[in-house]
């Protein structure tokens, strides 16, 4: 067990180190092999951990961690000086001061520093498998990047270090360690976003840095308040053990703020949108398996403590608002990656909301959303990378006739979008569970529940409009090429996409099994009490919620199979006719439509800030 865990923590770090110096010939097999090993390790850990595993590290590691903390903050300061960014400088100084104060007052003695429970193992699976796939994809992608050979190696190395940092984040119990790993992911994303080194990249990297630094400060403040109120150990375990105690609401609110910032909720969505300037694997990594998924992770970890508190209510309100606001602002976007980014923010809002409500069903919903969103978004982003590299497309309005030049890419992207929206895919299940539980919430919490429900219903409809808009461009073609021939995008690209496509289809087909044996135990661990998932006849019961399986099964044949068949089927006996254009014979070029929702965005940000203020306010009161 511990061996596997050690592998998860150290293998990425070592592989990253080797990649930095090894020649390209070695790096390819190495990356593929280590991605495989990491995935297997994550699986092994998942199956071997049923009770939370606590372990501490020797004292000198604590000192090492403290040293690393300080070093990293010094690096931030250096960045601030180099880029002449006052904001980053001030935030770094504040962080440094806070950290030193905490380190000085930290009670000595052996505390348990790490905890690996089912939630951690759940995250391990997501992080290692999806990021491994992205790493393999990157092998080819980074080859075509215009930069020096060392930068390419550095990129691959950074990717693995990022995976390592993520593995550490989800298993840290001590909040000081958590702060370090949290800021390490910030650092990694800063380096990633600024990778291309042009003015926009640097600017956006700085934005990402200071926003996430705010999250770091929130964690430090949380640690401070825990110590100040005299609750002893600064660990998640200790925090959860004192659920409902006086004065703990503020630290919880601060940790939630860190989560919300990481999750790019309004008004902090700018860093994630700005991250689009980086090479596409970075976006895939940030959006699907790492970085933003810290947000639902923190909220899920804290959910037993924050549920039913005013803090949770404000978070629910905020995320409900973010869901519809980011869906609306997505309507004005044309850049394909930005469209995806907005929908990520919206779905993250839904996950965080579900985590914050914290009933067994909503926790299952949050986990379902985390996993399925991870897979689908990864697939979509990698396809965005292929579009960029193979088809030289970045704007969604340029994708006209893509299904003629790249039918396979178009098909996969159509399935990807469908999987974010419609039954029987997991994201739909998540959304369904959310609407049903929000209905229950509206019965209890009256106005708040009703408002959030309206936001989710409205936002969902807006998102479906958005997805239709993009899918419409992907699917259109003339009748002249009624022969299907899949394009060849090269082994690395097509292999990763096939794996992801397989994952999407298999997870959908095996959903009842996954719910019973995969999500329910994790949700039970998060919630602290068993989550009953019963499979009776053709119905699946999660708590009070009933999922009829037969309709889902038929829906599986209706939707994914329809989309696949629609590409392959040929009616040979029917004649082809030209499209009706009032008898004219003109070749039109098709584009998409926009809604100018840009004007609303400042108001959205302002409302987001109000929510954050409210979050602190309710915690103080």
């Amino acid at each position, binding site marked *: 067990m511990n061996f596997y865990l050690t592998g998860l923590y150290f293998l990425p770090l070592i592989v990253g180190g080797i990649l930095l110096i090894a020649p390209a010939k070695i790096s390819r097999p190495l990356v593929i092999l280590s991605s495989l090993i990491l995935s297997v390790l994550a699986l092994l850990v998942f199956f071997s951990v049923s009770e939370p595993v606590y372990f501490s590290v020797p004292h000198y590691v604590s000192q090492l961690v403290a040293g690393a903390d300080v070093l990293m903050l010094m690096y931030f300061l250096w960045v601030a000086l180099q880029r002449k960014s006052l904001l980053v400088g001030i935030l770094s100084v504040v962080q440094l001061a806070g950290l030193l104060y905490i380190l000085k007052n930290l009670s000595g003695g052996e505390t348990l520093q790490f905890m690996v429970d089912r939630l951690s193992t759940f995250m391990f699976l997501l992080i290692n498998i999806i990021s491994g796939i992205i790493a393999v994809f990157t092998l080819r992608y980074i080859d075509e990047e215009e930069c020096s050979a060392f930068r390419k190696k550095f990129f691959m190395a950074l990717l693995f270090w990022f995976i390592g940092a993520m593995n550490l984040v989800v298993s840290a119990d001590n909040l000081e360690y958590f702060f370090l790993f949290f800021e390490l992911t910030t650092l990694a994303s800063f380096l990633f976003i600024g990778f291309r080194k042009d003015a926009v990249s640097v600017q956006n990297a700085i934005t990402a840095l200071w926003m996430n630094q705010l999250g770091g400060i929130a964690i430090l403040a949380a640690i401070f308040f825990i110590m100040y109120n005299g609750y002893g150990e600064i660990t998640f375990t200790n925090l959860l053990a004192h659920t409902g105690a006086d004065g703990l609401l503020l630290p919880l609110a601060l940790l939630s703020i860190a989560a919300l910032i990481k999750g790019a909720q309004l008004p902090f969505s700018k860093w994630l949108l700005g991250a689009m300037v980086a090479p596409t694997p970075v976006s895939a990594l940030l959006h699907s398996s790492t970085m933003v998924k810290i947000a639902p992770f923190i909220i899920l970890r804290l959910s037993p403590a924050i549920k039913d508190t005013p803090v949770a209510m404000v978070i629910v309100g905020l995320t409900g608002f973010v869901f519809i606001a980011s869906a609306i602002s997505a309507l004005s976007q044309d850049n394909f990656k930005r469209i995806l980014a907005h929908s990520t923010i919206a779905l993250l809002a839904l996950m965080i909301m579900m985590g914050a409500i914290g009933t067994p069903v909503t926790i299952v919903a949050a986990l379902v959303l985390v996993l399925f969103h991870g897979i689908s978004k990864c697939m979509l982003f990698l396809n965005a990378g292929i579009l960029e590299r193979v088809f030289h497309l970045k704007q969604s309005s340029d994708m006209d*006739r893509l*299904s003629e030049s790249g039918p396979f890419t178009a098909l996969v992207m159509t399935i990807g979008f469908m999987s974010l*929206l*419609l*039954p029987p895919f997991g994201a*739909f299940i998540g959304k*369904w569970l959310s*609407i*049903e539980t929000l*209905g*229950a919430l*509206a*019965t209890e919490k*009256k*106005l708040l*529940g*009703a408002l959030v*429900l*309206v936001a989710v*219903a*409205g936002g*969902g*409809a*807006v998102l*479906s*409009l958005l997805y*239709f*808009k993009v899918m*419409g*461009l992907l*699917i*259109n*073609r*003339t*009748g002249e090429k009624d022969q299907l021939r899949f394009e060849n995008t090269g082994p690395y690209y097509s292999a990763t996409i096939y794996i992801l496509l397989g994952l999407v289809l298999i997870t959908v087909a095996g959903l009842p099994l996954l719910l019973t044996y995969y999500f329910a135990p994790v949700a039970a661990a998060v919630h602290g009490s068993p989550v009953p998932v019963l499979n009776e006849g053709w119905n699946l019961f999660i708590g009070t919620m*009933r999922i*009829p399986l037969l*309709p889902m099964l*038929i*829906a599986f044949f*209706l*939707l994914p199979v*329809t989309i696949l*068949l*629609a*590409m392959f*089927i040929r*009616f040979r*006996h*029917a*004649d*082809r*006719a*030209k*499209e*009706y*254009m009032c008898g004219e014979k003109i070749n*039109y070029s*098709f584009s998409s*439509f926009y809604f100018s929702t840009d004007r609303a965005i400042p108001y959205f940000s302002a409302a987001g800030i109000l929510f954050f203020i409210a979050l602190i306010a309710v915690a103080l009161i």
Partner: protein
Amino acid sequence: MNDYLIPVLLIVLAPVIGGLVYGFERIVKARMQRRIGPPLLQPFYDFLKLADKRQMMVHSTHAFLGIMHFVSLWFALAVLLLGGDLILVIFLHLLSTALLILAGYSTRSIFSHLGANRMAISVLAYEPVLIIIAVSIFMINGSFDTALVFAGNEPLLYKMPLAFIALLLVLPIKLKKSPFDVAEAHQEITGGVELEFSGLFFEAVYTAKWLDYIFCYTLVFLFAGSNILLGLGLMAFTFLYLNALDNSSARVNYKQMLRFSLGVAFTLAFINLIINSLL
């Protein structure tokens, strides 16, 4: 077993009943204009005639998506009538609409694209309202299952009249009736997404419209619960209302439609939700 007999019969005969409703509607509409109108079985004559046309299509994907639109709509209807989960039903209906919208987008025909765009916008206009109505039903029944609604004693209409009005306001969008028929707009974009279908393939889309009638009238019927007389009354009222509205109003553009539906119908449904949650 008897519980299932009527729903199953309804499901199997849904296209036939829908066709009759459509035929009757054409007569009623004609009478409202002081015309005689076509025979009652006219939709079936159309159906049989279309079966005998030379088969033409733009491309296979387009034709196949049209057929699957019909199949998935029938499936959504079956789930609704068999007492399935209302949210699931709404999303299954969205699925079938999605397939038709995709079919519209899949050709390179301008009118088809315009129709698909407008249809996607009408989804935005009516879907939130339907979901809010479903949640209102949940608040009263404690469950989203339509089976409970069909079995419920007191009709929902008395408990949530505002939701019924909201439903009446969005039904024209869903059924593509004036003033909210932008998605179809025969005189303007010659039928929108339906345009490129012909012969047998058009038949699927044509009969799917009949299924949509059954779907919508079942939604109306939900408000009467187990009170069948009231349900029939509501359906008759809705029928007359829809046709009178269709005959007497001119088409509004999509912005006006969206503004009306999200401004008036959605607000009504929301007020109803608040009232229900307070009671």
